[in-house]
């Protein structure tokens, strides 16, 4: 969290700095199947976030000693490009923050992928943040979810993720970077929409019981729209495949 000394006004006349309502998502654009080499891929523009997700596998688990004869293992890399932030040049590759995010993201997908279908294999999930503007882990999980489905990997559900938090006494959805830096609390969540089970939950700042409840409610409500966009992206990719198949006849 940045110094409070130069904190900008985040809410002016009941509106957020980018003009959104408290419970309003940024514009989200999802495209599935955009990388030819990957078994599945997705590109997400979420506000100013630009995030690429790709899935390789299932393939033979390497090195061999990590293979599990009962199920597939998931490897996950979340990383921010050195040029992704408006601030200074970053370090190449995952830092401590990215390693933690990779870990909790992997745990999300271990829940929904039907791992027992692919014994002795690994499934690689790569999330590369090309441009980051707050909420990149949520946008990354939302993208990776689409990439996994796009790879045809059996899953119990199509997970989405989004964060909610608090600015002063207001509960607010989907922080951008400035809001993220100066907010009073931030809580990214990943949800399995079929039963609203919580698969990722992180939080820091300060929320009392009622605020927490309100924030969770906001996430679940926004999830309907995110889920719809994920499904739409997958359908659009299938219809492209169908068209090109017809063209080849």
């Amino acid at each position, binding site marked *: *969290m*940045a*110094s409070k*000394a130069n904190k900008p006004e985040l809410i002016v006349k009941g509106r957020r700095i980018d003009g959104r309502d408290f419970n309003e998502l940024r514009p989200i654009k999802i495209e599935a199947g955009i990388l030819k080499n990957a078994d599945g891929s997705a590109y997400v523009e979420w506000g100013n976030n630009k995030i690429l997700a790709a899935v390789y596998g299932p393939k033979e688990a390497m090195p061999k000693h990590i293979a599990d004869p009962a199920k597939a293992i998931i490897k996950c890399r979340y990383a921010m490009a050195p040029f992704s932030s408006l601030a200074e040049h970053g370090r190449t590759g995952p830092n*401590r*923050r990215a*390693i*933690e995010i*990779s*870990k*909790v993201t992997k*745990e*999300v997908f*271990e*829940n929904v992928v039907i791992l027992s279908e692919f014994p002795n294999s690994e499934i690689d999930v790569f999330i590369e943040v090309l441009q980051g503007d707050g909420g990149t882990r949520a946008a990354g999980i939302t993208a990776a979810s689409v990439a996994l489905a796009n790879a045809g990997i059996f899953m119990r559900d199509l997970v989405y993720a989004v964060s909610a938090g608090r600015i002063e006494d207001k509960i607010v959805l989907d922080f951008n970077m400035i809001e993220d830096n100066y907010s009073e*609390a931030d*809580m990214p969540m990943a949800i*399995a929409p079929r*039963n*609203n*089970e*919580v*698969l*990722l*939950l*992180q*939080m*820091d*700042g*300060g*929320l*009392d*019981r009622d605020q*927490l*409840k309100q924030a*969770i409610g906001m996430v*679940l409500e926004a999830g309907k729209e995110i889920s719809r966009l994920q499904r739409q992206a997958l359908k659009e990719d299938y219809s492209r495949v169908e068209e090109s198949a017809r063209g080849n006849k």
Partner: protein
Amino acid sequence: MEAIDSIKSNYIRELLNNGAREDSRGPYDFRSIMIKTGVIEHAEGSAQVDLGATKVLAGVKLADGAPMADTPDQGTISMSAELLPLASADYEMGPPSPQSIELARVVDRGIRAGNCVALEDLILGEGKCWNVFVDIYILNYDGNLFDASELAAMAALMTTKVPKYEDEKVIREERVKDIKLNNIVTSSTFAKIGGHLVLDMNRNEENAADARLTIASDGNVVRAMQKGLNGGITVNEIDEMLDVAFKKHGELKSHLEKATNRSL
């Protein structure tokens, strides 16, 4: 997972189905908590926490350095955790594992978001401040490193004395005052095992767990949360764990205050 671990996991699940735990605790009981402070005299603050057989040592060192560019009016605090190879047969030598990074960052978030250390009090002069380093050493692993580490870090900070600073030099032999604190944060970590929620899991319970949730709070306000493992949790379960965590804070806080002779 070793065969013995899966046998033990089944045993833990069966016990819980009958409302019991391996060490006959209730679902929301902590194991015995022992906090010893001042265990490393060379460190500016230190504490060892025994939570059942889990043993964690935290040391605090202060260095004169520079503030972060975006917070020129504050000192800094940083936290690390080492899962020492001597703490468990499962821990290996080498670079920090994702598990140890997660542990350090979750403990850090609770203490930072709870505004526990008065960072603005750590300014030494123009462009100069104290950098506070909290290092968490896991000495023996028997489950629930999160709560043991949060307690150890908090206890070490509560006993931290600031060295003398004179003519832009640190005089470590003389410690002039207690580090200024604003708040005490503790955490409660729950495991969900076959649909049952339990607080403060031991090693066997942690092996059997489907999901894990850490809630750091100061009794009324949640300061940090982290869900772990691949199982899901419901919104109602979060609500129930929140209730317990708020209640347990009082218990943990009084342990800290007694052990450190300092109350807030």
